[in-house]
């Protein structure tokens, strides 16, 4: 009996050692974007922006001080722009950001390229593509595929625009 209980004790020690992660792994997480496990808060992920905003002003200042002045200023302006949004606008933007970051790395890059190309289009074409994406938003994935394969879609947009819309449709809610 005593032997068996001692065996249980050592088995527990071995099991504990194998379960417990190395202490170093519990420190600050790596820098890889999207790879860092983030705390769940009310069902939504914390973005690096939200993590940054939760830091104290001193910590924010210290972090920004690592950057050259131009980049620091750009970040400060971008943060200020975000602050000027309504909670609803901000929430929608963060949801889109999270959807982007949930994509595989290759798809993320494709969407970023599509966003850049979108910015280079004429304002009226941007508006047309924006309207198309809004129309696609409430559809199911199958309906979106049907729509993007339809003759009307091909007639309304040139090849480049079609690709932009297809790539950016990854940002739409998954219905």
């Amino acid at each position, binding site marked *: *009996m*005593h032997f068996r*209980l*001692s065996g*249980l*004790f050592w088995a*527990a*020690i071995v*099991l*504990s050692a194998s*379960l*417990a*992660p190395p*202490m170093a792994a*519990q420190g*600050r997480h790596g*820098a890889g*974007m999207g790879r*860092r496990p983030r*705390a769940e808060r009310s069902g939504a992920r914390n973005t*690096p*922006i939200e*993590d*940054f905003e*939760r*830091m104290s002003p001193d*910590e924010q200042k210290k*972090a*920004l001080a*690592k*950057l050259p002045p131009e*980049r620091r200023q750009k*970040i400060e302006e*971008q943060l200020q*722009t*975000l602050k000027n949004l*309504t909670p*609803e*606008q901000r929430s*929608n*933007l963060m949801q*889109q*950001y999270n959807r*982007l*970051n949930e994509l595989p790395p290759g798809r993320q890059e494709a969407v*970023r390229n599509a*966003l*850049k190309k*979108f*910015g280079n289009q004429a304002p009226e074409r*941007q508006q047309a593509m*924006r309207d198309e*994406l*809004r129309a696609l*938003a*409430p559809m199911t994935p199958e309906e979106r595929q049907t729509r993007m394969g339809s003759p009307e879609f091909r007639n309304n947009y040139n090849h480049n625009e079609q690709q932009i819309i297809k790539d*950016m449709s990854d*940002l*739409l*809610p998954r219905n």
Partner: protein
Amino acid sequence: MQCPLRSKDGQEILIAYVAGTLSPEVAFAVEQHMTLCSACCALAERQRELWAALDVWSSTPVPPDFNDRLYARIAAEKNPWWRQWTQARWPGAWRPALPVAFACAALLTAFLLKEPPAQNDATSPALEAPQIEQVERALDDVEMLKQLGLTPARANSSREEI
């Protein structure tokens, strides 16, 4: 008589001679041989000296509790200190629970290390501090998404949200 030192058990014969345990006939024969053999004579003399020394030696008296103390010491060496410690502090019925308690404590520790408690948003922001480069990339992404304009405008919140 053949010299006892040359035979297999010759020394025993000489020792028995000195002790006086030989039969008279054999003892006589040994005596006769020793008149001629100096080696046997010397051995017999040393044996006599040994007996004489043993006669005057007195052994130290053994204390009456010697055996008890000896067995206690043997038992103590078989029982390591940590077992004595647990035996002294844990009554017999509880003793088997000790390894179980240690096992549970080890598992609990491992569980806590594997699943660290969720950080309180307000109290430990530094632990969640993102790398500034991550923030920069995230802000660039958000800026592009904002330019895309799928987010409902302030004055047009009735429009479908995406």
